[in-house]
């Protein structure tokens, strides 16, 4: 039942279970301390003799494809979150598994969304043993209350690529939903009613899974170009009516927050980047899709326009705002990890300087370098930050696991990491003594921007020097913490049972922290 008896203390001082779902854990060693050994995972050698000579791998239904792929108990099934909260595919797969009476599957999504609440009955009846991937909203709540049979494993996007590549997670069947595909299995996310721009999250799965099924609602005759997923990796292709609800897959148009408090945070963040010279000619940046991050990009634009500064590249999540900066020449390239609106999809299809990336190029720590480290400044969110600049992005202060890691951990390797966060949300302090769950070590977090002051990591003496004499409200992180407590009162710590419901992997596959079961009082 996933009960842990043995705990070990990792290099961050966090207690983590010695074993997860029967596999021994490598505890976090520290940033850049754990050296992997051995060789990458290799899938079986396929032969053309086992595949149709005319290249047509199309199977009439998803169910038949899953059966042909050998779906059985205890397998690992992977899916991807390109369709975000509009996804039908993952739910369909497990409906089929349930109908076939299959048990104990490990679901390995690149992320889950509230629409996957549909799967809770399968977690209850044992069709799914546990989830390795983000657990957003209802699934996180379910897991936090100790109801999942196995222990969840949360990885960053880069960490997911690393885990597949290193053979830490062996995928039996990868099901790749694609907006456009041909019967051979070439696929992309650019065209069709379920267009999402790109399919980067499925790249590792296509390369390393035993069986690969491409599912589309827009089957085109060979060739489907560009082939973001190469058909040469694909076993079966399937055409279905609808991969998802287009309205929820992608927003027709992204909107910048109207919240004056968030806009203020965004503006202050941009001003910090201006004062410290982070915004300079030829620089690079990445902002997320959250309301505040999106607004930061817009304030960057104002500063860049005023000063005649151009960025060499911006890392996406792209959206119409970033696309317009590309079109205006303020940004030379968009290196895009996922598109957030239709304008992003259009731009990627039409503009050669709007390039799709994958967790391999951008984030994988077990490779010969990646793009994230080259980015001058990244703007990220957090649920909590502590006085050591450690940050949490997965649990709330009440202990509930409600968010995934995404590319967050990977982005911490950028040259300057800025977290704009409110000092408190409702009554809950965001700057705290100690984070509930450690996701990012403080040594990688440089600046915390709150509406009541900016704290700079004392390691960054260069930034501290640059803000001297400016009118920026610079404070110490302890001052911010005290201010939050003064306003909100010091909260009680949530109570946990001594049972891990999930572990948090660091980018190198070691375990940086565990999430425990929230004590249920009633």
């Amino acid at each position, binding site marked *: 039942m996933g009960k842990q008896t043995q705990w070990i203390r990792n290099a961050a001082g966090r207690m983590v279970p010695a074993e997860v779902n029967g596999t021994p854990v490598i505890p976090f060693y520290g940033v850049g301390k754990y050296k992997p050994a051995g060789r990458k995972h290799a899938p079986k050698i396929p032969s053309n003799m086992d595949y149709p000579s005319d290249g047509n791998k199309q199977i009439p239904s998803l169910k038949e494809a899953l059966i042909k792929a050998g779906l059985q108990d205890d397998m690992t099934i992977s899916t991807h979150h390109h369709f975000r909260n509009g996804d039908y595919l993952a739910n369909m797969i497990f409906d089929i598994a349930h109908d076939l009476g299959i048990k104990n599957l490990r679901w390995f999504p690149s992320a889950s969304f509230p629409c996957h609440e549909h799967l809770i009955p399968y977690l209850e009846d044992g069709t799914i043993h546990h989830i390795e991937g983000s657990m957003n909203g209802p699934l996180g709540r379910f897991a936090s209350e100790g109801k999942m049979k196995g222990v969840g494993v949360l990885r960053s996007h880069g960490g997911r690529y690393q885990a597949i590549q290193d053979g830490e997670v062996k995928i039996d069947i990868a099901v790749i939903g694609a907006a456009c595909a041909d019967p051979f299995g070439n696929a992309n996310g650019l065209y069709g009613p379920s267009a999402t721009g790109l399919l980067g999250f499925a790249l590792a799965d296509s390369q390393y899974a035993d069986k690969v099924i491409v599912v589309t609602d827009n089957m085109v005759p060979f060739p489907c170009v560009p082939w973001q997923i190469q058909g040469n990796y694909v076993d079966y292709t399937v055409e279905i009516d609808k991969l998802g609800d287009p309205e929820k897959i992608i927003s027709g148009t992204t909107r910048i927050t109207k919240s*004056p*408090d968030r*806009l203020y945070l965004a503006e202050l963040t941009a001003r910090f980047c201006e004062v410290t010279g982070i915004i300079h000619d030829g620089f690079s940046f990445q902002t997320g899709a959250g309301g505040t991050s999106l607004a930061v990009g817009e304030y960057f634009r104002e500063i860049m326009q005023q000063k005649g500064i151009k960025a060499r590249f911006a890392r996406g999540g792209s959206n119409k705002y970033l696309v317009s900066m590309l079109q205006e020449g303020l940004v030379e390239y968009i290196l895009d990890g996922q598109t957030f609106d239709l304008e992003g999809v259009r731009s990627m299809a039409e503009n050669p300087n709007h390039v799709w990336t994958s967790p391999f190029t951008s984030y994988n720590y077990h490779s010969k370098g990646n793009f994230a480290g080259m980015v001058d400044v990244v703007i990220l969110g957090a649920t909590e930050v502590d006085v050591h600049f450690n940050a949490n992005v997965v649990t709330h202060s009440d202990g509930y696991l409600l968010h995934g890691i995404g590319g967050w951990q990977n982005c911490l390797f950028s040259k300057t990491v800025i977290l704009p966060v409110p000092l408190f949300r*409702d*009554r*809950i302090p965001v700057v705290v003594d100690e984070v509930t769950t450690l996701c990012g070590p403080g040594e990688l977090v440089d600046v915390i921007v709150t*509406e009541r002051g900016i704290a700079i990591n004392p390691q960054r003496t260069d930034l501290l020097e640059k803000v001297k004499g400016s009118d920026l409200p610079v404070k110490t992180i302890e001052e911010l913490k005290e201010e939050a407590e003064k306003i909100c009162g010091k909260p*009680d710590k949530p109570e946990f049972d001594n049972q891990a419901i999930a572990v948090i992997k660091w980018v190198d596959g070691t375990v940086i922290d565990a999430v425990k079961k929230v004590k249920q009082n009633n």
Partner: protein
Amino acid sequence: MDKRNFISATAGNTGDKVRSDCYVSVQIKNTGGIVIDIQSKVKSMYGRHMHNLTERILAFFDITHAKVRLIDSGALDFVIMARLEAAIKSITASDKSFLPDFISQNDYPSQRDAFRFSRLYLPGNTPALMLNAGIHKPNGVILDLEDSVAPDKKEEARLLVRNALRQVDFYGAERMVRINPLPAGLEDLKAVIPHNVHVVLVPKAEHPEDLVMIDKTIRNILQDNGNDREVYLMPLIETALGVENAYMLATSTPSVVAMAIGLEDYTADIGVSRTPEGSESFYARTRLVNACKAAGIQPIDSVFSDISDMEGLTRNVKASRNLGFEGMGCIHPRQIKVIHKAFEPTPEEIGKALKIVDAFAKAREKGLGVVSLGTKMIDPPVVKRAQRIVSLAKQLGLL
């Protein structure tokens, strides 16, 4: 305990969109002790604390048997206190007040001639909008007890505003309260005046004697509290009669430091629609400006109600400044910066002011009674104005 007809009461707000607030229901009983039921998303962190606070408040009001239900949406203590006090007071006729601490950051005075470019309206019964208001650096914040508060919520808003004046850090903004028209406004004054209010906004001002009475009431309340701080008045001119009486209102008492026009009500009163170009209110606005200038106080313009139209706002503020207005109301924090920008002194004005200030300093050094710049004599008010422009330019980071 002096019981009224009913023994249970509620206060506060709840619902999907409600934040930083709470809804309480209090039922006073004859037996059974204290039963407290708390529903809150922050219960695991603050449940114990909220329970203790509730017990303390009940004990303070000498209640020994009661059933209390608290549906909390992340309210801070001062909000919970105001909500419980409001519910309790609508059952028992207690004249005690359960006051949160007065935080030291709020202990600052204002000045008669403080800049009043922007003043941000904050609905008096909506705590979520109060908490970060000061962050946006308006010249003033207005805790509004009048139009933004529903008639049946006036009592609880009074207590909430009182507690906010003690607990919310407004980061140096001038602290204003808009009271209700008389006689309800007098009750408002009793609740808020002892808690460092700088300016009282008097709505629908028409009669100078009302302002005199309000001024006197304020003085009495301050005296009772052993306080000798200045509380200024800003009458709001919102009717045809108010416009006609503008100068008399402006000079009714020395406490009047500024006068503002409220165009929604004014246009309704004269039976026309408010237009963007505002020709229908041109007379009223210029009349108000002239009355204020004659009385030596600040004329303040009405709010601009389209919060998404920043360009329209900019045009509006510039036109307003050209008419002689020295400030404008804001209904959204994003308007503050735009308004400041439009009211802020131009480089030419700053240059001239610097010269005057410099000449004044030199004259003082030489012990001269008269300040002159080139061949021109400079009057003391001109020096004062120049000093204000220089200090404003510094405040705004223009110098």
